[in-house]
């Protein structure tokens, strides 16, 4: 097994990539996917620590993270659909008025 630090580094890098995606992309779907990326980076950390500490709780929490991520993605996509129906765009810059 690779040392814990390797996994943490990988996780940090993937997380940073996810952050970059959220900041620079101008497509709501890609932004949402970048958020999933960040969540996965965190999951990786949890699993790595779970393995390293010999504690199953890390894996349990990952299961919960997945549950919440599923709910989040579904609701997010529903919002995107409903925004797209109103505005015909997915660019967050077009949604600065806090209203339809």
């Amino acid at each position: 097994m690779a040392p814990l630090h390797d996994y943490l580094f990988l996780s940090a890098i993937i997380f940073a990539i996810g952050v970059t995606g959220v900041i620079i992309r101008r497509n709501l779907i890609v932004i949402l996917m970048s958020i999933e990326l960040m969540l996965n980076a965190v999951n990786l950390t949890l699993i790595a620590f779970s393995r390293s500490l010999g504690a199953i709780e890390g894996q349990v929490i990952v299961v919960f993270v997945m549950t919440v991520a599923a709910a989040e993605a579904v609701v997010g996509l529903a919002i995107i659909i409903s925004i797209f129906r109103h505005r015909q765009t997915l660019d967050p810059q077009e949604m600065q008025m806090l209203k339809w």
Partner: protein
Amino acid sequence: MAISIEPLSLLRLIPLFPLLMAAGNIFLGAWWGKKRSGLLACAAVTLSFLLSLWVWWHLPAAGAFRDHLFTWIESGTFKAAVSLQVDPLAAVMLFIITGVGLLIHIYSLGYMGHDEGMVRYFAYLNLFVFFMLLLVMADNLLLLFVGWEGVGLCSYLLIGFWYQDHTNTIAGNKAFIVNRIGDFGFLLGILLLFWELGAQGVWTLDFADLKQSAHLISPQKVTLITLLLFAGAAGKSAQIPLYVWLPDAMQGPTPVSALIHAATMVTAGVYMIARLHFLFSLAPLTLKVIAAIGALTAFFAATMALAQNDIKRVLAYSTVSQLGYMFLALGVGAFSAAIFHLFTHAFFKAGLFLSAGSVIHALGGEQDMRKMGGLRPYLPTTYLTYLASALALSGAPLTAGFFSKDQILGQAFASPSGSFWLWSLAWVTAGLTAFYMFRQFFMVFHGDSRVEQRLKAHIHEAPAVMTMPLMVLALGSIFAGWLGAPEFLWGSLWDHWLQPFFGGPEGIPHGDLSQEILLMLLALASAGVGFFLAYLFYGRSGKIPDASWAGGGLYRWLLNRYYVDELYDRVLVRPLTSGAGWCAQIFDLGFIDGVVNGLAHRIREASLFWRRLQSGNVQHYLLGFLAGTLIILAYYLGR
């Protein structure tokens, strides 16, 4: 000295009847019809009167009655209850309010019989009685204030009763506004009293508790409090400088004038000071002020009454003058005498007003005395009742006014806080009183008739429903004073009655007998001179003398009531309105709006700049958020 208090749930019925009937007349009056509404209103007051009599009868045995209804406000240790209390002082007031009130109600049945708004009239009248009863029976200052304000409201409603006439509504407004000025002082006084006592750890407004702990307040504060309270009393009881509303208030129906402005409402101030006598006794300076203002009011109002030609205005100034007497008595510490004069005054002033009402009624609404004269054969009953009341007011021997006024004069001279100057002012006023009363008497009933021809045929005596109350009041004017005869005659039942309330004999100081008799004779002489002069100028010739006999200037001065209204207009109202206008149109627009708008503009400009930060773009926020995270992380890294 503790007064034993007995609970008596009957008390709540006394104000309840008028209240219920007022509500009934307001909501169901149209259905009942005029006649029934009047009769029901009278019945309600009759019931209250009978209950009051019953209470009066049982009071000496009990000491005082109390009826706790419910707790109104409860905050910490402070508790204000809606509870009624009747002690000797309140009992006197109850008798006056319900008794004289009942007579006026009955009289109104005749006087207002043809009026469109009779239902409304009786509703107001009952409401007025209710509030007055509440004021008198309240066992704490807060409830008293409720009644106080309610009375003010009702006076406004009743003065402006014939609201179709603009001057009436103006008069109603004036009464209300001037009263508000006094009420403001009153309210401040209550709050200050409450606060100062609270600072001493006593959170209360109950009269009984106040009496226990009034001495805790520092003298300066007591002086301030009592002066503020007196401002309220001056407003309600029409003292200098707030008396101006009362003469104008004569715009209301005459029975209203009798009820409000002679017998009951204006006595509220006197009653309040008597009720809080323990507090005022702690403030000698305030008492001096009250005495001085009372004496001055008495004198000046009497002089103003000299030259009036309106039959009700003369009486109005007379009322102000007599109230001045009462305040003089209060000021010299003769609380009992003040209440006694209030009591007798209620009879003869109500009698005078109602008699005047009878005259006005007979002449179809004419109020100018210059268009009267020689009415004696037409109105025999009114003539007699008027004469009796006028005699009482003038202080003719053995009438009610004689005893009460004599007591005040005596106290003004003899009591420790009295003085020669106070006495002499009151003494001169007594002469003036006799003069203007009989001037009026002669102008109305004697001499040549100056009644307009078209009215002459219709002059008639009032119906029995009006004359009966007149006769009762006339009898009262003669005999009510006998309750308070001086020691050297048969002694004062009155002082025995009120003694438990005002406390020991220190409230009724007595000079020696010879001095007392001397003062009495002097007062009689003054009244006699007044009467003689009135006869000389107005009674003998049967004509109205040329007004300029005493030098045109002084006469005009008096006729126009010292131009006080004009003075107030110039000094207070105009500067105030013009100042307000300046504030509204120049200061407000130019300065305040300028400052506010300028500020708003600056803020707007700043906001327009800073709001760029809030782009609405989530990604910008995230970048800021990330930058913050980076800084925090860097901080921990750098440590």
